């Protein structure tokens, strides 16, 4: 019985974590989506500034995301669109990380 117990403990410590690619992707997607959503609304709450030519500008740097996320704006609706882009990018990236990780673990076995 003692031998079994030592065996149990060895198994416990020798186990290698497997990532659930779908779950990992989903989590990263939600995190990235929320990041874009919160960052956009945070700038909206802080407010923008007026340029010398009289235009009111909010978050000009974050606005550059629209180069990748077509349709994205620093506005409330833009933050929702940004959430979906962030979610999609995070999900794809997370799933890819999970998949590659598991492949490498299999290969190293």
């Amino acid at each position: 019985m003692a031998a079994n117990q030592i065996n149990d403990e060895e198994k416990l410590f020798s186990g290698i974590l497997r990532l659930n690619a779908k779950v990992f992707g989903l989590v990263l997607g939600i995190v990235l989506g929320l990041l874009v959503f919160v960052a956009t609304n945070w700038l909206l709450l802080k407010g923008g500034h007026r340029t010398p030519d009289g235009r009111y500008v909010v978050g000009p740097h974050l606005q550059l995301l629209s180069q990748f996320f077509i349709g994205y704006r620093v506005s409330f609706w833009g933050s929702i669109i940004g959430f979906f882009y962030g979610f999609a990018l995070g999900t794809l990236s997370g799933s890819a990380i999970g998949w590659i990780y598991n492949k490498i673990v299999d290969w190293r076995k």
Partner: protein
Amino acid sequence: MNNANCDPHGRRVIIVGGGPAGLTAGYRLAQMGLPSVILEKDQIVGGISRTVSYKGFHFDIGGHRFFTKIKAVDDMWKEVLNDDFLRRKRLSRIYYRRKFFYYPLRPFNAFAGLGLWESTMILASYLYARLFPHRQEETFEQWVSNRFGRRLFQTFFKTYSEKVWGMSCSEIRAEWAAQRIKGLSLLSALRNALAGQNGANKKRVIKTLIDEFDYPRLGPGMMWREVAARIEQSGSRVLLGAEVEGIMRAENGVEAVTISRNGEREVLHGSDFISSMPLKELLLKFEPPVPDQVKTAAHNLKYRDFLTVAVIVDKSRLFPDNWIYIHDPAVRVGRIQNFKNWSPFMVPDQSKTCLGLEYFCFEGDDLWRQPDRQLIQMAAEELEMLQLAERSSVEDGHVVRMPKAYPVYDSEYNDSLRIIEDFLRGIPNLQVVGRNGMHKYNNQDHSMLTAMLAAENVVGAAHDLWRVNEEQHYHEEVTIAPEQQRLLKEKLRAAFARMDSFAFATATGLVCSMLLLLATLFVLLRQDSPLVPYMGLLGQYFIGYSVTPGGALLGAVSCFTWVFLLSWLFAYLRNFMIGFFIYRIKRKMELLTFKDFLDHF
């Protein structure tokens, strides 16, 4: 020859010993309709779990909490006493240098009790022991010092251990402590730790398992008197004052026992025999005698004896603990029970307190042979020295000597026990049960479990009694279905599995560098993108990066390197934290082992 108490098939079970194990076996057999004869050499049932009465004051021989994880045992307790159980709060502290300490030690309590200097020295000694441990752990002293530091060992463990064992800690083998640790499964501890994360459950479990216990209104003797009465009502017999003098053995097993009772000798024949008498005595009573090797093994089994000096103190309240451990080297008393705190019904006059001062000794040594009057006087003096009660407030006292209270786990016992076990396995109709019956640290509930299983064996089951409490796994095997246990292990393994740092770093590095490469190429495709100057800033971190096809490739390599390093660090720290968590659980197990050690005496 006495052949009364046989079932219609001529079966009769002879049970030697009227303690918890013997009585439980008789009770179970009675429930199955099998008659038995229980032989108890004393004039009172209960063995070490008896309750002695003196002038209306009730006291135990040691304290006996009714607390178990074994459902069958719990059911029997409830069945027998039901409404006579009190739910009691547990408080048992260490008394050292006139201060009370909790165990496991609580930092503030220990600091307040020991003072700044002593606490610092203990901490320093602990750190030293962790950095420079004894390379070989041959003695109990080395074993404890390696885990707790030499200073804490000397402060808290040395004196009490030596009082309990009657020998120096440097003479006690480390195997004893290691054996106690071995009995605790890390998987179980992790399971408990995880279950403990659940707030409500944690509170309930801790409350139930550590801080509270059940206790019969008039002590454990109340339970065993009632069990004996029910056994007799069923038609079986409980013979008090019946000392077994010989066990007659033939080739196919034990045939009869010779007893002496009221000055007369009697031979009792039986079909099955269950013994809870000390293993050493049992083996030396065989006729014909056991082989020399077994006889030598029997002689190698040692016991620690024990005496309780119950004193009646003319004070309504002395301390709130159920019992306290006396680690003070200036006095000989090892533990003090406050029976009123176990149950207020143990004391007939609430203006008085009944304390049980427990002295660990060897049968026949100076303490054992001291007249009762001197022992009571010594107890009163020690109470005053400890500043727990004034000598003049001790009104009366009573002494109870309990031989062979604890089996000694010395360096020889394990090999001897194996020889004895092999020999006894060759006697099919004799089973040994209980603490002394098996020479094991069985608590009351474990003793009862062995007896219950022995009773089932009589009617055809095939339980291996030697395995019960061997490593405390037996209960889990009894209570948790194998399938559940397998699933549990799988879940724990998944939860504590190590993350492959290299695989994680490579995967995240590859994905991030690909994203950078694609993003840069995307920007290049869109001519005059306002992003170009901003993305170019990434070159500050990713060496060689620029918003050009070549720069994108170099940047991807650089990005891979950075992300690889950071992700590897993340995975490494994650594994480290899991390892640290497991290490803490193991340390906690070791600490609790000492609580277990304290509780066993």
